[in-house]
């Protein structure tokens, strides 16, 4: 009895591994096909603009409000700890560096994945479930070029702007709490920040991170939508998987990118 159970267990593991490798292969082929079909969305840029409105502009409020609160909390907590060592003027450096290097790109990407990524997946999945994609193919309109690629490029374009807004609003929130409310000296707040934050090493690296996250989140979102089983249950499962997978991808990629960018820096 026991060996049979063990064999079944090993079979289950094998089945899952094979399934996930298959899925990974499908995702890669999907990604390359999408890049090849991107010409249409570049030529008819209006399609991309429409999607930037839905993914970027409508995500603005949640990004700006969370950025403000994250910056204010960083200011409060940083002040609380730094004043024990009498260096509360370094709070500007703390807020700016943690936002520009890590929190801005990562938190903005997480919010973007749950606000815009899930919407993209649900939309494409429902289009597939209601056979709109099949209807497009019947009319010789390629859904890859007409539906998938514009959404992908819109996400890739919006993401760096959203993260930059998150970081700058966060710095403003830190300024509000520490300088206006608590009364840290304004001059040393800005001057210490400016001498610590380097354009090339901190800001450009942050922007590179957001671009990578933008590609990862939107690629996962469009693939999950396109690959979803055409049922109500399938679409809901795909939406959940988008948020889970892209959040894990953001955090994992963040570690890898940070290890390459800030290794050995002072």
């Amino acid at each position, binding site marked *: 009895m026991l060996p049979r159970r063990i064999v079944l267990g090993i079979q289950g593991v094998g089945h899952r591994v094979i399934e996930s490798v298959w899925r990974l292969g499908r995702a890669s082929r999907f990604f390359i096909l999408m890049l090849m079909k991107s010409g249409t969305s570049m030529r008819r840029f209006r399609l991309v*603009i429409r999607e930037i409105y839905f993914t970027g*502009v409508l995500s603005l409020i949640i990004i700006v409000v969370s950025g403000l609160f994250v910056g204010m909390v960083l200011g409060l907590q940083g002040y609380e700890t730094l004043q024990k060592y009498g260096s509360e003027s370094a709070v500007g450096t703390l807020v*700016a560096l943690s936002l520009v290097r890590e929190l801005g790109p990562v938190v903005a990407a997480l919010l973007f994945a749950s606000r815009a990524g899930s919407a993209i997946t649900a939309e494409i999945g429902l289009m597939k479930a209601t056979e709109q994609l099949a209807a497009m193919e019947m009319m010789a309109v390629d859904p890859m070029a007409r539906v998938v690629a514009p959404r992908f490029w819109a996400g890739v374009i919006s993401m760096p702007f959203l993260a*930059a807004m998150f970081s700058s609003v966060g710095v403003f929130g830190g300024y509000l709490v520490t300088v206006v409310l608590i009364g840290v000296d304004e001059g040393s707040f800005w001057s210490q920040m*400016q001498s610590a934050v380097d354009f090339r090493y901190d800001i450009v690296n942050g922007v590179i991170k957001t671009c990578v996250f933008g590609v990862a989140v939107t690629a996962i979102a469009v693939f999950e939508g396109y690959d979803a089983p055409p049922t109500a249950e399938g679409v809901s499962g795909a939406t959940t998987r988008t948020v889970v997978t892209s959040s894990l991808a953001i955090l994992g990629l963040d570690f890898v990118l940070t290890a390459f960018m800030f290794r050995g820096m002072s």
Partner: protein
Amino acid sequence: MQRTTMDLWVGLFVAAGIGALLVLALKVGNMGTYSAAQSYTLMGSFENIGGLKPRAPVKSAGVVVGRVLDIQFNPETFDAVVTMSIDIRYRFPKDTFASILTSGLLGEQYIGLAAGGDEVMLKSGDKIMKTNSAMVLEEMIGRFLFNKASENKDGKN
């Protein structure tokens, strides 16, 4: 939604994003205070650089005039060669004194330039002749203890 309204919103979004990037670069970062585009390089060899790192500031009279570009070890003279990029607006005389200093007790290390009185100015790629090494705490304590010990010996004799 109308086409033009959507275009307007997307335009505003992109403009706000570029504005935020500019704010980060100019107000939060150091782009506004120092540009690497217009600068010349000076070299200096130090016996010991202590904890000096690339990107550390180069100051004269407390004002940041440049940055440390590169630090290398010279295997022939066994000292450290520091390359600095200095803002083109500031010229220094040939007999300028470069020393490695520390800002505050635990602060970062920087290079302090003290101008001399020579008429000839340093050109790009020139080497600063007069340098002063970083203070290494262990060496200072060692020297102090050694002096103390020899003092005691003298006192007994």
